[in-house]
């Protein structure tokens, strides 16, 4: 009786987000995972998502250049921070206390996007993502503007990322296997702005050039003139 009550209390008071942490060896894209950490383009491939064939966008990696930064130029030294509101399916990008980008996203439907504070550890101009099974199987070449993030509890091997999505346009509603999907134009804007500063088609964070902080929040409370309150 005592152990039952104790167990019930422990479960009741357990941190809310711990139940959404991925299990050990989990990878958001169960097949492709993070096996290739250099930019990859497959212009002749046909994608596959939820039973539908998808023609991926044609990408020319040689045309990628060090981006012209259009966001945050008014206060370039202020710290950057990305907030993802899972309840509102909205992404907010702040530089200092200035909101510089707000847009709808699609977070995890077939696996939840785990709340927590992360940092971007690598940016890829394009990669291939595949996983799922049965009706849920998918294979998506040329996923653009990919920003992988991780922390001590959700390691890089779990393969969660922010990225553009060309196979659906249902933002504002969960649609992914754990990643944060964005419109391609929004992903490109965020990719060009987020740290580490883009140096090529593959850009890794270092101690000298750390990645931008990404907070995945159960909900976000905006505050005038300040960064929002993130409820994890």
């Amino acid at each position, binding site marked *: 009786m005592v152990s039952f009550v104790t167990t019930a209390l422990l479960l009741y008071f357990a941190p809310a987000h711990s139940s959404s942490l991925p299990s050990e060896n989990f990878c958001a894209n169960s097949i492709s995972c993070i096996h290739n950490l250099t930019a990859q383009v497959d212009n002749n491939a046909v994608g596959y*998502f*939820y039973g*539908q064939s*998808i*023609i991926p*966008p044609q990408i020319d990696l040689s045309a990628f250049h060090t981006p012209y930064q259009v966001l945050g130029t008014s206060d370039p030294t202020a710290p950057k921070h990305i907030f993802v509101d899972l309840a509102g399916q909205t992404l907010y990008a702040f530089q200092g206390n200035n909101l510089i980008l707000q847009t*709808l996203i699609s977070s995890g*439907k077939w696996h939840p996007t785990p709340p927590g504070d992360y940092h971007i550890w690598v940016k890829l101009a394009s990669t291939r993502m595949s996983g799922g099974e049965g009706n849920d199987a998918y294979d998506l070449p040329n996923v653009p503007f990919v920003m992988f993030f991780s922390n001590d509890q959700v390691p890089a091997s779990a393969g969660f990322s922010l990225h553009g999505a*060309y*196979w*659906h*346009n*249902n*933002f*504002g*509603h969960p*649609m992914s296997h754990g990643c944060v999907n964005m*419109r*391609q*134009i929004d992903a*490109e804007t965020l990719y060009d702005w987020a740290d580490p500063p883009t140096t090529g088609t593959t850009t890794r964070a270092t101690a000298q050039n750390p990645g931008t902080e990404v907070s995945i929040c159960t909900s976000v409370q905006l505050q005038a003139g300040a960064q929002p309150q993130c409820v994890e």
Partner: protein
Amino acid sequence: MLPTLRSQFSFKLFTVLAVALGIGIAAAFFFYNLHHIKAPTKQSMPYLPSPTPTPSAAQPAEKSWPSPDGHNILIMHTQLSSNHTVTYVFAVKTPDQTTEQVIFRKTVPSTVTMTIPFNSWSPDDKHFFIQEHDGDRIRTLVFNASGAAFKDGQIFEDITDFFSKKNSKYTLGEVTGWASPIYVVVNARAADGSLASSFWFDISRQTFIPLATKFE
């Protein structure tokens, strides 16, 4: 009996005094309000967001919405007429084009509004949908971005109308976006308003595919 000189003088004096009093009261009222306009109270003003363009007969309003890849733009022109109707014109263009291709035009009562939702464009830029709001009723209309008619010869597909004809069990709730280049995500509501089921509307076949997953 003729009025005496004395009574005439009294009457004139009274009239002058009454007029002067009236002028004085009016002047006092005028300067009182003038002072308040120049020196408003120090209470805080409510935050007013930047106003959205208000259509007028002289200056039509315009809203532009890019496709998710930025390769195309859907434009909505709005013009209010003096007879309380609003004309909406929907056109498409690419960012480097100056000319627009008009796809659809409709004049509605001023109580009806038309909008471009966030997820208007299909992922392949070949289609888009707009919405017409009339009180609680929302119609969702799908168009070919080329302006071409659908296989039934119609310039648009009315998802709301199709759903009501093919599904008597539920009512159409929300049309949220595109699950693929040809599937529109549709949520159906039960009589109590709860989410009953989600469907994909296949724009090529004009059919609804029931889903095991709810896209809320």
